[in-house]
């Protein structure tokens, strides 16, 4: 059995209908579990005080902001190369989720930064990069919305996602060059887990899992919606032509 079988919409609808309750249930458990654990049952950091609790939303949201775009890049490529409609629709479905994640990362970053840096907004390279990423999401979503023909929209947004990815990475580098920041270094990459004490680390992992699952559940629902909307549009057009 090939993985491409799931690119068939009917198969996708069947499989996703089966998977959705499980994903949704697990999302509820891990997301609520992670956030409750992080909010109620973790100690304060000796330096950052209780603001360290923001880590349980800021970091997962920031990770998702980037990873959702990466997923959109992959699905766009699959669409452009293999022309699987589900792939293009999944990219469309994911974009608003990624945008909200970016927004959460920005807002919590600003709120966290206020007591730490003494200002709501600091043109710190990472925050700035996320702001730019947010703009890319905005443009991508706006382009989907502006084009009527769904195949044209899928093609053009796919190309935009490709070019945008390159320039998003370039911007990241450029912003770094332009302002060396205040952010702490990559304290959370998986191979460096010793950088964060275990008491913070375990609830964080649960919370990250929760965010990933939430994204998965939302994308499944939204892709299902997009497939239905597509069928609806096809039926309406056919009716008009008949």
């Amino acid at each position: 059995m090939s993985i491409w079988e799931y690119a068939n919409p009917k198969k996708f609808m069947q499989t996703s209908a089966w998977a959705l309750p499980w994903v949704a249930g697990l999302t509820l458990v891990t997301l609520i579990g992670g956030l409750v654990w992080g909010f109620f049952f973790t100690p304060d950091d000796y330096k950052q005080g209780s603001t360290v609790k923001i880590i349980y939303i800021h970091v997962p949201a920031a990770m998702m902001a980037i990873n959702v775009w990466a997923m959109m890049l992959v699905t766009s490529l699959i669409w452009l190369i293999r022309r699987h409609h589900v792939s293009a629709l999944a990219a469309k479905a994911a974009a608003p989720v990624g945008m909200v994640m970016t927004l959460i990362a920005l807002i919590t970053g600003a709120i966290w930064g206020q007591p730490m840096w003494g200002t709501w907004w600091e043109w710190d390279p990472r925050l700035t990069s996320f702001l730019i990423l947010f703009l890319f999401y905005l443009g991508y979503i706006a382009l989907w919305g502006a084009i009527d023909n769904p195949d044209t929209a899928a093609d053009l947004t796919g190309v935009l996602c490709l070019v945008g990815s390159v320039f998003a990475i370039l911007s990241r580098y450029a912003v770094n060059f332009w302002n060396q920041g205040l952010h702490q270094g990559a304290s959370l990459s998986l191979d460096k887990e010793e950088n964060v004490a275990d008491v913070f680390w375990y609830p964080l992992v649960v919370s990250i899992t929760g965010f990933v699952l939430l994204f998965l559940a939302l994308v499944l629902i939204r892709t299902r919606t997009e497939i239905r909307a597509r069928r609806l549009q096809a039926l309406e057009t056919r009716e008009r032509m008949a």
Partner: protein
Amino acid sequence: MIALLARDLALAVRAGGGFGLGLAFFLIVVTLVPFGVGPEGGVLARIAPGILWLGALLACLLSLDRIFALDYEDGSLDLLATAPIPLEGVVTIKAAAHWITTGLPLVAAAPVFGILLHLEGAGFFWLTASLALGTPALSVLGTFGAALTVGLKRGGLLLSLLVLPLYVPTLIFGAELVRRGVAGMETTTPLLMLAGITAATVALVPFASAAAIRVNLR
């Protein structure tokens, strides 16, 4: 291809304002800035590189939506797409024509505007150099945005939304180059980055633009 470039330039000249409009807009931006931030020479000199780069960027943005829109409306774009010129060549020529009508006059006039903003000595050289290196990338990326939005009725605002994030690296390195030039700091890194971005953009983005045009004409 030369015929296409010649035609586009002739059209820009005859339509009136092809060359002048971007420049006039640039002048207005530079004139308005002191009203916004106050007339102190020190402040103006400090923000001059950024203002001049931003003005160039906005002036460039101003005329983007016309790159393909007119050819799309009168059917020329269909005909060009079936002509023996590769579409990648067509979009490159379009970008070149856009640069000659907006980017090039800005490069030439920027030192004059620099005077208005009290730009300091070494800045004039670096400003001209950075604009000359950076504005081709702006035109090529703008052509890409125009290619994406060519079939849309009201693509103007969307075009800005799509193109401006793509301008970030060029703007950062361009303005940084001038700033460092004025301050007498090391300029090699931003210079190379700016040149590299422009070279890669000019070489690769036309393929994306041509693909977008093909999709839009389908």
